[in-house]
């Protein structure tokens, strides 16, 4: 790709303590995420996919390396600026959906807008529009515990889109879904990616994700496999 990357990581390294030893989760990874990307991070368990997503999504900080969001070094961001960046520029989809159980589907979608102090009418309208876009029109007032796994993941995708993000990070988005539902969710993500131009970064072992990805990066033991990007 010739476009300027939204996110650019160089030499990203992350270690975790495990007992008396330290585990090298990432060993100097270089990665770029471009506008409108549909990038799959592939690899077995423990390969560093989730760690890389956490670093790219500003959920965690690298021990070494440089991560730039557009033209800014993310190491210079304060804790509040990192939170605001996640709120305004990023969206997140989790393997276990992570919906707020006391909120309805529409309220879950509207929550990131509430964090931004958006007007109530605008929140309501946008939540309705996004739920319709993910095929959940009419489910606005339903609580998550009354929705199926696929419906919950759709709500999570709608929530991720709430504040017009430039990138959505999805960590194993199909791992808790049956095969048919997983296909539907992946098609939805790809459709939103193409229609709205929002970039997706997905970590997965699911070959269906890899099949649909525009780019695939394979990770192994915390490093990118040569020639995989």
């Amino acid at each position: 790709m010739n476009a300027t990357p939204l996110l650019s990581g160089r030499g990203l390294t992350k270690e975790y303590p495990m007992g008396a030893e330290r585990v090298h989760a990432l060993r100097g990874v270089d990665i770029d995420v471009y506008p409108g990307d549909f990038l799959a991070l592939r690899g077995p368990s423990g390969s560093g996919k989730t760690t890389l997503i956490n670093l790219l999504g500003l959920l965690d900080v690298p021990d070494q390396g440089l991560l730039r969001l557009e033209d800014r070094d993310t190491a210079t961001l304060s804790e509040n600026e990192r939170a605001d960046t996640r709120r305004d520029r990023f969206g997140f989809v989790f393997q276990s959906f992570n919906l707020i159980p006391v909120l309805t589907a529409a309220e879950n979608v509207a929550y990131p807008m509430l964090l931004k102090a958006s007007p109530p009418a605008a929140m309501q309208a946008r939540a309705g529009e996004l739920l319709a876009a993910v095929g959940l029109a009419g489910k606005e007032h339903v609580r998550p515990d009354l929705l199926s796994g696929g419906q919950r993941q759709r709500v999570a995708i709608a929530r991720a889109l709430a504040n017009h993000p430039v990138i959505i990070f999805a960590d194993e988005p199909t791992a808790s879904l049956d095969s048919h539902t997983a296909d539907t969710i992946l098609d939805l993500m790809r459709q939103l990616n193409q229609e709205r131009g929002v970039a997706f970064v997905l970590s997965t072992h699911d070959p269906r994700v890899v099949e649909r990805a525009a780019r695939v990066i394979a990770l192994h033991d915390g490093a990118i496999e040569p020639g995989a990007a």
Partner: protein
Amino acid sequence: MNRLTIAWRNIMRNHRRSLLTGGIVAFGFASFALAGGFMAQSFDGLRNNAIRGGLGHVQFADARAFDQSEESTLQFGIGHTGKVMAVLRANPAVDVVMPRVEFYGLVSAGGRSVPFAGIGVDPEAEARGSNIPKSVHQGQWLESKGRSVVIGGGLAKALKVGLGSNLTLLATTSDGTLNAIDVTVRGIADLSIKELSERYLALPLSIAQDLLSAPDTVSRISVMLKEPANEPGAATQLVEELKRAGVALGVKIWRELAVFYLQVRMLYLAIFGFMGAVLLVVVFLSTANATLMSVSERTREIGTLRALGARQRRITSSFILEGALLGLASSLAGAVLSLLITFAINISNIEMPPPPGSVKGFIVSVQIMPSVYLGAATAMMITLALASFFPARRAARASIVESLAHV
């Protein structure tokens, strides 16, 4: 959807635990409200007893009389009483003026002699401004004319006399000689303080002045005001008016003289403060455990909210809001509980034994004090907010990745 709605839904998420926590808070609130209401009732009773037991709202005397003891009868007496009384009665803020002569003597009947604390009073003024006439349980209160007296029940018992008995009063006059008069028992007063009951002897002012050979002289003048709220202002105004009439007198408002009232009030407030502090600690510890569990159970949710862009401060403040809201709701329940218990106590006529130094018991009564209710609700809300603050702040500061991985 707003933060209050979300907070309330989170409270109701585990309604059994919230009910238990709320029950502890409601009980704590009721304890505050009832103790405060009982205390307020006691203060009112004590204040009323002090004012209507002889102090009045404002008291005038020779300035030395407030600080020193008399070495001879009426050493610090107020002369020209008629002139002073006229000035005081002319003030529209004054309701009743009660002149008094205080002295000590010996009372004899049928060969028995007992020391007494005499008080010469204006019977009609006392009937309007003092509670002593109401305590006469045998016979009648004094009348202005006639050589009759009212004595305490304890004194009557010591002298073995009853209504209509003749007594001889012996006292030292203002010029140091001894004088005696014969009087008749017209009434016997039921006084709650034992020592007072055994010494109390009231007689008309003019008879006391005759006995002490001190015409137109009194020890002090108590004044009851129509609007008691502004005692210091009224006292200052009356002193100025007396000065303009050429009379210089010392003045004290009842609070400066009611040592017993102030001591009891301080004691009650100290006990209430200590109990309140203990209660708040108990409520804090009881609710902190529930809050800690609630925060711990929602660790992954906290991680999710932070991933979505919620700042640490927002997470902490959300839990504080939940705590305060639960405190408010529980306080409302506690207020209802308090009102029901107050009503039950006040209609039950529960009699308590006499307090130390008293011979009469009293009926337990509890006031409804809006200020105490408001204070208790505020204290409960702050306590629960504090109980939420520490675990919430810790969870909000935890690593997002670790929070999301929490099972």
